[in-house]
């Protein structure tokens, strides 16, 4: 029988510590929408998305009300658009038409983001992949809710450095074409991108997936922080780790419940739970605060990488026990603009891009929501992408770069993205060039430990 202390604990997590289900993301395959005509492809895409996901928002809200847990976002991810449009798109503007169709479908459904305006080019680009990539700046400028991602490498294939070079230019162009360079907040470059990630901007519905699935992303950095603050000050690592693990278990169980309910009500199979600690700009909903509670003055202090490694691992250990299927990114997110504690650390001079890069070796994603001066060169951005991709490739993990070279801004300025995307201080980038390396053609071979056959 449930007891009062358990009930009060759950409700305290929800009401005071920002426990929520961050997203119910419906993955939809658009492979059967491909057609030789751009118009027909767009029509089929619109029809399929709005048919399968028509009750997504209502179902998410119903579940939220009945269980008393906010289901913050309802979203859709689709088959990488480069594949869907490969038969009909002959120029970048053809792909932009697909982007506009996706935006229209998102607005019709009432969802805030749709992900999958993507190309998977870990080993090389098809003509369609390249066209889609070249269309990204225009697509980001012409749409509001479409998220784009490009996977430029993997442990099995190595890194496509031609795509890395191109993405440096595309990120710059996207920044220039969109207000406050916000297009770059919806564009992420990945290595080892998972097929079932429910979180934006990197969500897409991989070709290994079924026709439609429900993936759920849970959150709850505030809950972990609260427990550590009240029970773990001065305790040893054993108790600290055990506490994080137990808390992650509880958080993930809620996600599992919501995912099963959503799957049942929508008649769409349950895919995975992504058990990430995803911060928001709200006070108390911060991964940085957890790192401080573990014992750092600010994220970025010596010991940060170890603290984050510990946190990430315990979140996974607790979460895996709580769900039958775990996938996506699953770990701690360390975006700068979306986490007030990270912003404070940057402003205090504690956190640099180089330290963030080290942190990405042990957390679930990468350099996320980092604003840099608008004058940063395309080759420097490519170099940053290559570094992150190399970390992912060698460590057999997902890494990503979501960097915003904010047009007209310099180090020390601040940029406002609004809502969940938050605001960010413009960070310093190394002034030394990597242009000659980025100018080389071809790809970086797969690492030796990828040969497991």
């Amino acid at each position, binding site marked *: *029988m*449930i*007891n*009062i202390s*358990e*009930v*009060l*604990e*759950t*409700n305290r997590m929800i009401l005071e510590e920002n426990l929520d289900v961050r997203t119910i993301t419906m993955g939809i395959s658009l492979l059967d929408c491909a057609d030789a005509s751009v118009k027909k492809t767009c029509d089929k895409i619109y029809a399929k998305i709005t048919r399968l996901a028509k009750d997504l928002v209502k179902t998410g809200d119903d579940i939220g*009300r*009945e*269980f*008393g*847990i906010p289901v913050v976002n309802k979203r859709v991810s689709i088959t990488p658009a480069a594949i869907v449009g490969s038969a009909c798109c002959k120029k970048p503007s053809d792909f932009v038409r697909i982007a506009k169709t996706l935006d229209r479908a998102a607005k019709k459904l009432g969802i805030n983001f749709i992900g999958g305006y993507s190309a998977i080019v870990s080993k090389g680009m098809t003509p369609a992949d390249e066209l889609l990539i070249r269309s990204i700046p225009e697509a980001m400028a012409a749409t509001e809710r479409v998220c784009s991602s490009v996977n430029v490498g993997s442990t099995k294939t190595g890194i496509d450095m031609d795509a890395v070079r191109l993405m440096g230019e595309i990120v710059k162009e996207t920044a220039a074409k969109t207000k406050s360079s916000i297009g770059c907040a919806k564009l992420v470059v990945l290595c080892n991108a998972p097929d079932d990630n429910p979180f934006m901007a990197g969500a897409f519905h991989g070709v290994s997936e079924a026709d439609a699935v429900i993936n759920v992303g849970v959150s709850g950095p505030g809950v972990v922080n609260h427990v550590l603050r009240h029970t773990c000050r001065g305790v040893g690592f054993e108790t600290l780790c055990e506490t994080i693990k137990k808390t992650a278990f*509880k958080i993930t*169980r*809620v996600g*599992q*419940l919501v995912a099963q309910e959503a799957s049942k009500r929508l008649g769409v199979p349950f895919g995975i739970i992504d058990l990430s600690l995803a911060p928001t700009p709200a006070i108390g909903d911060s991964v940085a605060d957890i790192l401080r509670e573990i014992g750092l003055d600010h994220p970025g202090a010596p010991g940060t990488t170890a603290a984050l490694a510990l946190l990430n691992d315990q979140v996974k250990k607790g979460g895996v*026990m709580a769900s039958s299927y775990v996938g996506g990114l699953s770990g701690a997110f360390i975006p700068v603009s979306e986490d007030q504690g990270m912003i404070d650390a940057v402003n205090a001079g504690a956190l640099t891009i180089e330290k963030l890069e080290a942190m990405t070796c042990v957390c679930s994603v990468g350099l996320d929501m980092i604003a840099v001066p608008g004058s940063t060169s395309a080759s420097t951005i490519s170099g940053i992408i290559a570094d992150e991709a190399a970390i992912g490739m060698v460590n057999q993990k997902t890494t990503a770069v979501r960097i915003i070279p904010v047009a007209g801004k310099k180090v020390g300025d601040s940029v406002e993205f609004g809502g969940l995307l938050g605001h960010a201080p413009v960070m310093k980038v190394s002034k030394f060039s990597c242009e000659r390396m980025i100018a080389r053609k071809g790809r970086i071979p797969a690492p030796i430990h990828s040969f497991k056959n």
Partner: protein
Amino acid sequence: MKKIIITVVGKDAVGILAKTCTYLAKENINILDISQTVTGGFFNMMMIVDAAKYKKTFDKLGAELAKLGTGMGMRIRCQKSEIFEKMHRV
């Protein structure tokens, strides 16, 4: 059986339990278990109820209970029990 957890939280006062129970009886909702604590003048109550014979929608129940709570200066929430069972049981 439709098991629902009702929580009542707020400053302690006379008649909180009575008013809540009266409403539930009127709506044909059976109380299975009640526990409550009062610490520092702060009232916490949890009820496990069976709403199998309740005729209106879940949303209606939530809204009416919330309104009843507001009238007493309390916060009343109702939630399906699975969220607690899932979170606290392996």
